[in-house]
């Protein structure tokens, strides 16, 4: 068995909304896989089906060879889920939460306490072990939540938007943890709205939108699908953007890449030499260019090109996905 997760034509509707509209995934064992998409794309629904919390309306899904509907109990013995919200009891202390999960997994009281101590130390929560989780910072909550998912090391770990709402430092800590968990052999499926995150962690990723996988591959594949070379310009003045775009179109014909930043202009290049022509045209048009670079397109541009809309719509916590829970 080479695949940790395989889904075939997964469909799930909530009332009139089709949350999943035929999702096919194949995730190699031992890899970190990213499920990328905006709020309401179907990421959470996919993860909830794979972790046996929901049943699909149609299609099949297997985790480690076990059907998630017919063999749900077997699947639960091998996977862990860290949901979008800290799924720990805030009234209890960090230590008590870990002992609770350990006991529910079948550890004896002694083993449960020992495992809790180990994990608290590994996650740098020893000092906070006897404090209620409600007093924890966002980063600490995430750590105790992930620790709870690792009481028994799962063969597959689902992380649903593990860094949403975290500050950059806490985000780095979570990234580091994910890499280490994967290095020890656990398959990680993580969902994210941040292209940057998928780019840094995931070997392969699927871009999902309106319940469909619209692109799949390594981040290099995805970038290549939009064109190999791109010119990125940062303008000193946002009000010159329209003019800059016009001048660029005149030089390149076509190839403007969509961008959400009002001071940024990006365009696909046939060859890198065209960059010189574009810069020349801009200088002649008295456009103030603050920075420029030539390279592969960013995942943001990939996303925009694939879906026609920005990858990070208002990063609201009240997306449709939550509403359909």
């Amino acid at each position: 068995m080479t695949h940790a997760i395989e889904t075939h034509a997964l469909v799930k509707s909530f009332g009139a909304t089709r949350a999943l509209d035929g999702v096919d995934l194949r995730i190699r064992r031992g890899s970190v896989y990213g499920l990328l998409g905006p709020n309401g794309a179907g990421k959470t629904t996919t993860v909830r089906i794979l972790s046996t919390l929901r049943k699909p309306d149609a299609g099949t899904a297997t985790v480690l060879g076990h059907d998630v509907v017919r063999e749900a109990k077997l699947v639960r013995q091998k996977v862990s889920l860290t949901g979008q919200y800290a799924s720990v009891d805030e009234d209890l202390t960090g230590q008590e939460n870990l002992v609770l999960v350990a006991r529910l997994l079948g550890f004896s009281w002694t083993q449960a306490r020992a495992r809790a101590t180990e994990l608290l130390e590994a996650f740098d929560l020893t000092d906070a072990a006897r404090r209620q989780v409600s007093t924890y910072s966002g980063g600490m909550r995430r750590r105790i939540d992930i620790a709870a998912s690792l009481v028994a090391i799962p063969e597959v770990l689902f992380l649903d938007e593990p860094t949403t709402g975290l500050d950059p430092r806490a985000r780095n800590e979570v990234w580091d943890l994910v890499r280490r968990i994967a290095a020890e052999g656990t398959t990680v499926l993580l969902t994210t709205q941040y292209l940057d995150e998928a780019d840094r962690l995931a070997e392969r990723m699927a871009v999902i939108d309106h319940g469909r996988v619209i692109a799949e591959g390594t981040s290099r594949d995805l970038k290549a699908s939009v064109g190999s070379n791109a010119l990125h310009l940062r303008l000193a003045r946002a009000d010159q953007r329209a003019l800059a775009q016009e001048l660029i179109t005149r030089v390149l014909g076509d190839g403007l890449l969509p961008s959400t930043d009002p001071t940024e202009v990006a365009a696909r290049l046939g060859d890198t030499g065209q960059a010189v022509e574009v810069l020349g045209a801009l200088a002649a048009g008295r456009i103030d260019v603050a920075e420029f670079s030539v390279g592969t397109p960013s995942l943001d541009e990939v996303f925009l090109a694939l879906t026609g809309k920005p990858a990070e719509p208002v990063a609201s916590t009240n997306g449709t996905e939550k509403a359909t829970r």
Partner: protein
Amino acid sequence: MSTDALPSVDRTHGLLKGHPRPRPASALSSVATLAWRAMLKIKHVPFQLFDVTVMPIMFTLLFTYIFGGALAGTPREYIQYLLPGVLVQTIIFITVYTGMGLNTDINKGLYDRFRSLPMWQGSPVFGALAGDVFRYSVASTLIIVMGLILGFRPEGGVLGVLLAVALVLTFGFALSWLWIIVGMLVKTPESVMTTSFVLLMPLTFASNIFVDLSTMPDWLRAIVGHNPVTYLANASRGLMHGRAQASDVVWVLIASAAIVLVSAPIALRLYRKER
């Protein structure tokens, strides 16, 4: 990445490697563990016991001294009648917290964790109930003790009081199942409270907890006389004062069994169902 809060590689070495998982916990053990969790919550948030303690104390004091003279001649006489009823009312009211607690867990995502664990899926419900029965016991003890201080003298002795408490707890346990269903159907803990109080207010006040049936007009007496809470209050009073009628006790037991038989399967099914 260089933050000192990062766990060092040394410290996590091997920690994240697949340990053999223990055999899944038995149903009994997972229920016990979740009951332990309920106890911890009481320990950490003693405020949870506040309404369990303050409300009965308030009710007993208010009713005994404000209505006691008018209803029974003296407060001391009235409390002999009232106290077994206050016990019933208090326990019935606090059963709502079972549904509220469950709803909170669902909203906070904790139930996602529970449901993704390889344990018997009914454990969280039974564990929470075990914790609740403990709270009902605390409340009962307080009410009895305060009654004794105020002059309540149960003629049925210790055994009578214990039997009465046991009967009231049985009914409370049964009623909790209803609020579990409500807790799974509505969106917020507040709606659990509102929904259940619409039912509980008439159920407890249109009973003979505070006043005797004979003081009511005929049409009302017919309604109140069929309220299961009236049977429970009669039985509680009867047991505490050593003159219980078997029929009252039996009817309460039948009502409790009926509530559990109907609502427990629905509650467990709802719980297992996806959300």
